[in-house]
C-alpha cells in the first residue's frame, strides 16, 4: 500500500514536470523539466522494483541515472558553446539562437 501511494505521487510529479516542459518559456525550464522527468522515472522504477519484488530492476534504475546525466551534460554543452567538438570555446552564438526559439 505504501509503495502504491508512492508510485501515484511519483506519477503526479511526472505530470507536473511534463506541464513545465510543455509550457516552459525558456530553454532552461525545459532542460530542468526533462532532467526532473528522468529522475522521476528512475524513482518510479525503483519503487516499482520493491512493489513487485523484482530487485534486479534496481540495476536498470542505476543505468538510467547515468544516461540521464550524460544527456544533460550534452544538452548543456550544446546550449553553452554551440557545438560538440571544441573543448570549451564557443563557435556560433547558439546560446541566443536557442534562447529566442
Amino acid at each position: 500500500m505504501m509503495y502504491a501511494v508512492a508510485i501515484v505521487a511519483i506519477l503526479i510529479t511526472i505530470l507536473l514536470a511534463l506541464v513545465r516542459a510543455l509550457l516552459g518559456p525558456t530553454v532552461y525550464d525545459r532542460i530542468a523539466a526533462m532532467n526532473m522527468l528522468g529522475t522521476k522515472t528512475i524513482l518510479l522504477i525503483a519503487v516499482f522494483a520493491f512493489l513487485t519484488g523484482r530487485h534486479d530492476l534496481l540495476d536498470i534504475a542505476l543505468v538510467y541515472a547515468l544516461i540521464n546525466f550524460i544527456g544533460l551534460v550534452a544538452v548543456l554543452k550544446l546550449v553553452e558553446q554551440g557545438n560538440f567538438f571544441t573543448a570549451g570555446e564557443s563557435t556560433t552564438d547558439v546560446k541566443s539562437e536557442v534562447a529566442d526559439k
Partner: protein
Amino acid sequence: MIDSIVNITLLSLLAILAFAIIRMRSLFAVIMLFAGFSFISAGLFVAMDAADVAFTEAAVGAGISTILMLATLALTYAPEVHKKEKLPGHKPWLPLAVVLITGGMLIYGTSDIPAFGDPNAPAQQHVAPYYLEKSLSETGVPNVVTAVLASYRGFDTLGEVTVIFTAGIAVLLLIGGRRKKTKNETTEGVNET
C-alpha cells in the same frame, strides 16, 4: 491494480507528449520532449517486465539519439530558414484518409490475433515452453528475455554489435574529416561579417 494505474498514466503521458511534439515549432524543445518520450516509454517497458527493451530504449532513445539530434541541430541551424518555414502545398485530407484507413485495417487485423498472454497462441507453442522451463537451470539468468538474448542468441547479438561497431567507425571516418572544415568555414564566416 497499481500496474494498470501505472500503465494507463504512462500511456496517457505518452499521448500528451506525442501531440505536443507535433504541435511544437521550436526544434530544441521538440528534442527535449523526445528525450522525455523515450524516458517515459522506457519506464513503461520496465513496468511491463521487458527489461532489455527498456535498457535499449533508455540508452539509444534517451541518450544517443538525443545527443545526435542536438549535434545535427547545432550543425544545420539557420535562423532565417527556420523563420521562413513554408507550409506544405497539398491538402492534409489525403494523408489523413490514408492514415485512418491503414489504422482501421490494422485494428481490424488485431481481432484475429490471439489475446495478450494467451498460452495457446502459436507464438507460445514453438520454443517458448523450452525456454520457460530450462532457461534458469541452463543459463542461470532470472529474466527469460535476457537469457534468450544474451545466452541462447549470444552469437546473433555479437553479430549485431559488430554491425553497429562498424557503422560507428564509418560514421566517425566520414564526420571526422568534415569536422575541421566546418570549424574553418565558421571562423571564415565570422571574419567576413
